[in-house]
């Protein structure tokens, strides 16, 4: 035992090596559940579940729900709910699809494939989503209609606005550049993926070092150095492992051949090219990073949590909780539009049923990820892990060949069980 004296005299309680890591037990539990799930499915499918190909697919299937789940965390933390996210996604998707295929070509004369068309479509789609979200937030915050009712109404309204805009037709094909945001059609390639991995790993280490330095500066208690080193090693290992896996999924030979043919070149013999990190996953990571900073380090985020913890106290502290509600719902609307980009690009067209049942998946992801419906607590990484767990469960059961009705029965039961576990955990730890 070399170095177990802690810097402050007040805490002389001896800790075990494990406790000194100061791990977030809930995070550990969720990662544990995901790992168990993956290993279980992998055994049942004779190793088909944990292949680079399947992990790649799992990642791109999770993105759309995970992006919205991040926004749902803020909604639920402020003691609201949004039942309209799937429908809002459909409306945004319909707007962007119509813009690309009909409205922009007809009004501005921009044809499909014009380099500007996907940019304009996405910008207008994001604006529409944000505006609709803000409008719903205004109804909740200023007119004090319960969010449950506003978004239940929105659920019907926006699902059918989408239908009206497209006459219920499937709209496609979508712009080729737009499709790059969907997953398989747009990846960074192996080299850039490694660069990204290196940057991310460096940033993770830097963040740990920086946090420690700030604590030392103010003379606050810190973890032992070895514990920090273990954390850094695990973070870097996880990041690089993920990148290596996505890089290991190689583009099928025939597809690669066609890509070379399209460019009028001939594929070199024996060439192997990995996909690397999909742009959609990168988008999710960016959203997660920005929103985590927002939640922890900005006034906006602090006020979201304060309002969720005690709305009266927030109000008495001079926080404009009504305007805050508008902003939170506007952010949710923005993220729905972003998810609409990813979802429709992944499917290569807008279909009338896009986003159906997403509201339930999104709420379930946030709740499985530890967001308390009572408000005041929740994390972005938790919601993403929740979305991953749900998607792994769904894909795994499909691979194993579980009948469709049983798949939904299991998913529903898992949601209830997850919340029960969370309640037990909170009682144990004594946090509210």
């Amino acid at each position, binding site marked *: 035992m070399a170095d177990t004296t802690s810097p402050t005299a007040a805490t002389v309680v001896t800790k075990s090596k494990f406790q000194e890591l100061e791990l977030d037990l809930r995070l550990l539990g969720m990662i544990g559940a995901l790992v168990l799930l993956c290993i279980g499915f992998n055994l049942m499918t004779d190793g088909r579940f944990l292949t680079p190909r399947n992990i790649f697919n799992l990642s791109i299937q999770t993105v759309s729900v995970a992006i919205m789940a991040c926004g749902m965390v803020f909604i639920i933390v402020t003691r609201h709910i949004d039942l309209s996210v799937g429908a809002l996604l459909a409306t945004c998707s319909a707007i962007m699809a119509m813009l690309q295929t009909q409205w922009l070509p007809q009004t501005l004369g921009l044809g499909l494939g014009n380099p500007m068309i996907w940019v304009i479509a996405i910008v207008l789609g994001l604006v529409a989503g944000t505006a609709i979200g803000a409008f719903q937030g205004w109804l909740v915050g200023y007119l004090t209609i319960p969010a449950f009712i506003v978004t239940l109404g929105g659920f019907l309204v926006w699902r059918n606005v989408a239908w009206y805009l497209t006459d219920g037709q499937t709209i496609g094909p979508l712009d080729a550049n737009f499709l790059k945001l969907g997953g398989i059609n747009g990846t960074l390639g192996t080299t850039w993926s490694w660069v990204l991995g290196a940057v991310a790993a460096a940033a993770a280490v830097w963040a740990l070092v920086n946090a420690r330095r700030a604590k030392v500066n103010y003379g*606050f208690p810190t973890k032992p150095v070895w514990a920090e080193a273990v954390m850094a090693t695990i973070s870097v290992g996880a990041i690089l492992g993920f990148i290596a896996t996505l890089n290991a999924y190689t583009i099928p030979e025939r597809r690669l051949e066609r890509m070379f043919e399209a460019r009028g070149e001939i594929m070199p013999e024996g060439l192997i090219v990995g996909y690397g990190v999909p742009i959609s996953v990168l988008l999710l990571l960016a959203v997660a990073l920005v929103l985590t900073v927002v939640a922890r380090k900005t006034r906006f985020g*602090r006020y979201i949590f304060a309002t969720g913890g005690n709305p009266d106290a*927030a109000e*008495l502290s001079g926080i*404009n909780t009504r305007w805050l509600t508008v902003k939170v719902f506007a952010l949710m609307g923005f993220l729905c539009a972003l998810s609409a980009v990813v979802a429709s690009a992944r499917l290569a067209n807008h279909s009338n049923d896009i986003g159906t049942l997403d509201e339930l998946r999104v709420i379930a992801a946030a709740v499985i990820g530890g967001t308390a419906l009572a408000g005041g607590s929740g994390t972005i990484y938790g919601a993403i892990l929740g979305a991953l767990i749900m998607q792994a469960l769904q894909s795994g059961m499909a691979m194993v060949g579980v009948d469709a009705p049983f798949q939904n029965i299991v998913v529903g039961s898992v949601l209830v069980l997850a919340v029960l576990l969370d309640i037990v955990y909170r009682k144990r730890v*004594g946090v509210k």
Partner: protein
Amino acid sequence: MATPLVEMKDISISFGGIKAVDHVSVDLYPGEVVGLLGHNGAGKSTLIKILSGAYKADAGEIRVNGEKVEIHNPREARDLNIETIYQTLALADNLDAASNLFLGRELITPMGLIDDAAMEAECRKIMGRLNPNFRKFAEPVSALSGGQRQSVAIARAVYFNAKILIMDEPTAALGPHETQMVSDLIQKLKAEGIGIFLIDHDVHAVMELCDRASVMKNGELVGTVNIDEVTDDDLLSMIILGKNPAAAA
């Protein structure tokens, strides 16, 4: 005579049919402690919440330093250097002491992000003065005892250089030692020229700390007296019977 720090004139507010505050006038001078007394539901908290911006009066006017002001929300009250310790404490239970201390006025790094480390350092400093036994800086305030929570609420009101301090039963949850520390704090703030409205059910404490006392009953003002000129019993009879001793004597 100097201009009063605060004048609340003819203030009225009703909730539904109940006249919670009915044509009440009180004032406060620099370096003065004015006690607000009255039975439960007399309207004390409602009156001071009008000053702190939580409620908007139906009628009446407020003057600060002789100037007529409109206080629409708690932020505007804070801008007038009015700080309040609410009876309910108004703490966000899920946040830690430092976050509550700075809620609505967070310290910001040059990059525009919240400077948690600096806030915790400041919080440790002020808690060291107010309640040296306070250790729970990392926990959410829901994990604190009633008295510790009250200390956080007091710290929040005195940290920001208030000119006008409203204390709604600040010692309700405190032990004798901590109560004594709050009394010392009130004396010190008073010496610095801060005006304090103190709501307290303890008549002895009011006799000890206050210069004047205003007594309310059923939303109306019974009267305002100089503490030097009355006894404990006079105050008690004002509270219970609603009669002004000056009139009775």
